[in-house]
């Protein structure tokens, strides 16, 4: 190794070490541990007893057997596809629409408007879910039912969450969509603010409408942010379950058509009185593999490598 390389290495190690440490501590170690635990009989958090009790692929076999034979598993897969698909569209395009809408109004009302959309993300999950529990409750105590009944639109309360599949799907999509939309909004807002104002001013001078400015300037220039939000939201929707868990637990939403794969995995490993960490770890590994494949496909389709290409010119 020559001197320059050595210097470069020292400098690189210095700057990269905090990041490497973080990655190793919070990503690599848990990943290795998860894979390891998935091959043990670990349960009830009894590390002393089970950490060295290897069972080979038993946890994976058990899981795949359940996938094949559980009468509700088909509903779970269908729910996952619909939930991730539609919520993703709402989150990404909703975020974009909100960012564009606030871009064209003056800063003060725009920030309070954005703050409003951040509320679902800021409120504690249980509180936020409880609000929607009472809103969508399937009897006359539900806010939506009681409003509709007072207006005379319906005479009998509608069990929204138990109307399968679309009633249940609509609620979980709606509740999660509201939470997720603010993420895209923030990313897109910051992206839009990075665009040189001259471009917009020039377009305005040329008589372009807000719609034309959005379509011809703003959206094309936020393509990479779009890609980022899309991939990020896809992965997070695939693995999210806290809100859905509560809504199903409280019997607001039908269990079969309110359970996504992530929640199914959680319930199988933890939700049935037993704390089966071995099984949970196996399920987490499978979910991670699905996530990795999904993420990889998204990046390929949207040509992520183009963004990562070295810029032309001197370096």
């Amino acid at each position, binding site marked *: 190794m020559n001197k320059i390389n050595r210097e470069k290495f020292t400098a690189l190690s210095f700057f990269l070490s905090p990041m490497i440490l973080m990655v190793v501590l919070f990503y690599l170690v848990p990943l290795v541990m998860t894979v390891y635990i998935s091959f043990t009989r670990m349960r*009830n958090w*009894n590390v002393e007893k089970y950490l060295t009790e290897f069972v080979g692929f038993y946890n994976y*076999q058990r899981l795949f*057997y359940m996938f094949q*034979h559980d009468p509700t598993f088909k509903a779970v897969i269908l729910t996952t596809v619909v939930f991730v698909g539609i919520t993703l569209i709402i989150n990404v395009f909703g975020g974009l629409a909100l960012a564009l809408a606030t871009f064209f109004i003056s800063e003060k009302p725009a920030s309070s408007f954005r703050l409003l959309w951040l509320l679902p993300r800021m409120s504690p999950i249980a509180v936020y879910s409880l609000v929607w529990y009472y809103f969508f409750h*399937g*009897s006359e105590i539900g806010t939506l039912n009681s409003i509709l009944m007072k207006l005379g639109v319906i005479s009998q309360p509608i069990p929204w969450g138990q109307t399968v599949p679309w009633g249940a799907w609509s609620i979980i999509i709606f509740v999660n969509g509201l939470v997720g939309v603010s993420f895209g909004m923030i990313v897109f807002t910051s992206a839009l603010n990075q665009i040189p104002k001259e471009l917009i001013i020039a377009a305005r001078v040329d008589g372009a409408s807000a719609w034309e400015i959005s379509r011809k300037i703003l959206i094309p220039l936020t393509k990479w942010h779009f890609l980022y939000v899309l991939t990020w939201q896809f992965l997070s929707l695939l693995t999210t379950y806290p809100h859905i868990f509560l809504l199903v637990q409280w*019997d607001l939403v039908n*269990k079969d058509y309110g359970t996504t794969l992530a929640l199914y995995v959680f319930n199988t490993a933890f939700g049935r009185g037993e704390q089966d960490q071995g099984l949970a770890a196996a399920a987490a590994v499978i979910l991670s593999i699905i996530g990795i494949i999904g993420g990889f496909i998204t990046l390929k389709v949207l040509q992520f490598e183009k963004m990562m290409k070295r810029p032309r010119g001197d370096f």
Partner: protein
Amino acid sequence: MKARAVWLIAILLLGVIASGCIGGEKETTTQTQAPSTEVQLTGDFTKDVIAIGKVLEQNGVNEVKFSAWGSGDPNSVMRVYGIVEAARRINKVWEENGIKVKIVITDTHYVASFQDAYKEYLSKQPLGQAGDFFVNSYAFLPTLADEGYILDITDYANAYKSVIDDFYPSLVEASKFNGRLYGLPQDTEARPLYVRKDVAAKIGLDVSTLPEKVKNGEFTWSDVYYWAKKAKESGAAEWGLIHRKGSAHPDLIQFIFAFGGKLYDEKTGKLVVDVPAVYKWLYVEWKFAQDGLLPKDIMSWDWAKQIHPTIVEGRTLFDIGGTWYWTEWQTKQYYAKGGGEPRGLKPEEVKEWFAYTLFPAGEKGDKPVTLSQPFVWMINSKAGAQNPKYDELKDVYHKLAFLMLIKASDPDINAIHSVISAHLPVRKEAAKLIKDEKWLNDLKNLNLDLDQTVKDNIKDIVQATVNPINAQFLADVSYMLEYTHLAPAHPKYPALADIFKEAVDKVLRGEMTPEDGVNYIIQKVKADPELAQNVEIVGEIPKDWKFPQ
């Protein structure tokens, strides 16, 4: 370059491992003398407490810290304050005998959901952060004992045979695992069928003889159906029957026992899906729901806004509930008939409006039943670990913890809990006390020798619940314990209960016929190889079975 990278990663990993080890080393102290670290339990409580106190004092321990974890409904706080009171009583013995040691209860952790409490205990016990005392359903005891998370108290209990013998034997049995004792019963309950007296009067149902008829097996679920239908059709009530929801509340499995079925095979140690009994259970639910006597969506009803108000406002004739409902209706604001502010019921109102019987037999020839879920006081196998010289004095701390349980099981502490939470006493001595009017009066005025913290914490509950009517109710339902069944204390039972719940929900909503429901249960059980190994599927769906008969 490559070698350096390897070095870098190696050093990093070493750092991670080292950081895990720091602090893991055990504290060592230099011994200047060798005081005794052993105590033999004799069965004489005062003597044993003094002996333990002296050993602790000689070892320089002046303060023993313990924490108590409990869970349950808001009126059951004595599950943790019983421990606080026991500590005070032991402290008093030490003080009177000039021993300068004191027990301090550092934490009284009380949460509403007993399942959440159990999960928290499971995850924190291996870290040494779980409570020293843990009161929870007996259903979790086998798992906790099997994992070595709780203390085997069999040998200690042998010295206190006279106390143990005062507990109801079935409850002591429920506190055992593989023949060894792992806890002391704390409370239990029965699940009566409540009958609304005013609605019954309107349709000519005589409730005065009903408990006896149910007890003799003359009044079966077909009769419940008949009267429920009459109440609904005559407009006397909106519903014929209301019951509880969820899988953690095992009330509905009473149907299995009431139809002569079983849930557990003692010979094989496996859970049982008793197909004929389960079919009949689902059929009854289905029939009630189809005929509009029981809400189809009861499994998603809201406890506080729908289930309880419907019962206390007299909108149903029958209700499958629990003994603790009796005081819960008095302390919680469920009643809002006529559009006023919701309020609790007065004891007189509860007495005037509700009759109670056993859970009737499924059909003629079957027996009436009830169901109990005893709560058990358990000791953490690491109890006392937060105290000095734990390694040497471990046995002493464990024995002290056991003596605290013995003290917390004092008849008066158990009786106070029973009266204010409407659970049934676990000891015969406590059952006697409940019938003692003078004692009840003293409790009402909190004129008892109790720790001030305990008094402060139960003051409001005592005000609302201590009453001759409530005490009489407890005395009246005590006979039900003779008919009681326990849900199996099997680690896989919660998974099976979950499946039952889903099937009941689908059958009630009319998404499945009772037959589909049974098949769904079987399919679900078989889908998990581990569950399938632990469950026997017995019998077949009966042909030509009719309900009501």
